[in-house]
């Protein structure tokens, strides 16, 4: 694989690679570089037949670093068709006069460094950790910086080591890179650890699901948005739950930073945050928790909770035991039924987690089974 800098255009030669996962992996390691950002990118592909979904995911990878995929050079007729249908120019790119760049960093190192970066981050803020989304740019930036600071010898060594355990490792790295990729279209459900443990064939199957037969973006969308876990309503069953659509508000919720609070929130205490709040502990009556995003209480919620305070109707309030005096989501407001006047709730090990969200303009509490 080679990369060339051709005028304003950045040419990435992937002509020797024969499968879509390989291409995506190599591409993602190239895209880690600073030079590739804010460029028009031209891909040189070989005989590979790419379908629409695969090309789309490549395009979104490139869009994720503020670059654009401007042209594709391919020998495959199939790929050419797909590229044209997506509005990508198909042309022959001359590799002459191109500037060759240094060999790429293996992603393995970056992965390790990423873990370290996360660890140090959490150590710094012990009690209240304001953690931005894992997908956010800051983490990726950190990885890149660390890449640059490493000596090149070490790089080559680790690369050699890696070639020995090539295929499986490589594919798992694809997964990881895909997960760390900042655009919204990529499935984030696949866990890093799971991938490492599974056999090569299984990974291949999974990759086929992601990049394989079904030719539309909805594949990613479905996987990213989990299916309904809570369909039963406790008291009234006549309300039909409309199908969830993936909207701007969902994207907004996911892009919010999250604040972790490990303490009991007592009467009179107020917590405000312009993002999601996760409370590990109970919320006693008389406290007020206000968040622009979701509120999740790992304990008993008995105070006042206001999710989506910025007006986000999709915000939700979750708790292991929902006993909130008042629930407010966006501009909706509901109060605890008078019949449910429990003096206190016994702390047991068998709480059924509950979730409150807006259904047809009113706040409804659902039991989250399984």
């Amino acid at each position, binding site marked *: 694989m080679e990369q060339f800098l051709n005028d304003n255009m950045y040419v990435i030669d992937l002509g020797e690679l024969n499968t879509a996962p390989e291409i995506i992996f190599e591409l993602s390691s190239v895209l880690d570089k600073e030079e590739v950002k804010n460029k028009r990118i031209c891909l040189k592909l070989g005989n590979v037949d790419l379908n629409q979904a695969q090309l789309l995911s490549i395009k979104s990878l490139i869009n994720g670093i503020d670059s654009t995929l401007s042209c594709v050079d391919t020998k495959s007729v199939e790929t050419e068709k797909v590229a044209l249908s997506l509005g990508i120019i198909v042309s022959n790119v001359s590799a002459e006069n191109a500037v060759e760049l240094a060999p790429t960093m293996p992603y393995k190192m970056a992965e390790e460094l990423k873990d370290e970066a996360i660890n140090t981050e959490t150590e710094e803020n012990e009690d209240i950790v304001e953690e931005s989304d894992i997908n956010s740019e800051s983490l990726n930036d950190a990885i890149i910086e660390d890449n640059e600071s490493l000596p090149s010898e070490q790089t080559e060594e680790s690369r050699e080591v890696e070639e020995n355990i090539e295929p499986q490792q490589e594919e798992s790295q694809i997964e990881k890179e895909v997960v760390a990729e900042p655009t919204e279209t990529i499935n984030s459900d696949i866990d890093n650890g799971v991938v490492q443990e599974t056999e090569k064939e299984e990974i291949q199957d999974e990759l086929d699901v992601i990049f394989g037969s079904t030719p539309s973006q909805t594949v990613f969308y479905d996987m990213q948005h989990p299916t309904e876990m809570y369909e039963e309503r406790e008291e009234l069953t006549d309300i039909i739950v409309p199908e969830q659509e993936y909207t701007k508000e969902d994207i907004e919720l996911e892009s919010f930073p999250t604040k972790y609070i490990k303490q009991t929130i007592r009467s*009179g205490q*107020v917590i405000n945050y312009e993002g999601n709040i996760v409370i590990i502990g109970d919320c006693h*009556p008389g406290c007020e928790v206000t968040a622009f995003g979701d509120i999740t209480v790992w304990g008993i919620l008995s105070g006042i909770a206001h999710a989506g305070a910025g007006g986000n109707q999709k915000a939700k309030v979750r708790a292991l035991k929902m006993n909130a005096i*008042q629930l407010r989501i966006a501009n909706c407001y509901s109060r605890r039924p008078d019949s449910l006047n429990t003096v206190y709730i016994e702390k047991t090990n068998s709480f059924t987690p509950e979730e409150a969200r807006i259904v047809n303009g009113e706040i409804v509490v659902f039991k989250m089974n399984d």
Partner: protein
Amino acid sequence: MAGRVIVITSGKGGVGKTTTSANIGTALAKNGHSVVLVDTDIGLRNLDLLLGLENRIVYTLVDVVEERCKLKQALVKDKKNPNLCLLAAAQTRDKSSVSAEQLKKITEKLKKDYDYILIDCPAGIEQGFQTAIAGASEAIVVTTPEMSAVRDADRIIGLLEAADGIESYKLLLNRVRPNMIKSKDMMSVEDVENILSCQKIGVIPEDTGIITSTNRGEPIVNNEKSLAGKAYMNVARRINGEDVPFLDIDEPKDFVGKLKKFFSGLKKQGKE
């Protein structure tokens, strides 16, 4: 029509100011008067809990003062009695959020529309107390027949006398145990009256039902069988200017005593 503004205060904590406020307010409303209960115990509010209105509070006294809502919006109507309204205190703020002048303005506004404005005063003699008494023209001093509570009540009466707005004050003796008075283990009602040289407006017997009613969020005056409930009803009538005799709170516990009382009651009826 100008309403009466009555502050319910004590000095010492835990003698039953809030219980008294809730019950007198409910009793007055039951008798057909329009009543507003104002909780000035900012940061340690309980009045909403006693009335069972905790889940209905959206705006509080502090929101009214800071003009985030209108006064009408902040008034929470009682579940059972449409004559009764509650203006709750904020739980997440402190006493300095409302000044005496601001509370006075609010009571002036409320006076126009309601017969009675009852102000539940916080314990202590600091800023919260000074704020609470600012708008009031009458006071009810709650005390129990214990030396510490009586001392604090004395101090409070002194402060009330010095205050500008307070025209009259009455004593309400709470948690009285007739049995202990009989065995001379507790000060009698007369003793307390003498010590404080203050006219009493009611005597409330100790009643375990108070605890249940607090936990259920329902004032004890709604329970017609309860002696304490009856006593509070009488207090409400006296506030309204009726001449009601003081309740016979002497309730013997043993069976023989009960029989004696029963027969003496029959005798009285026979004489009449």
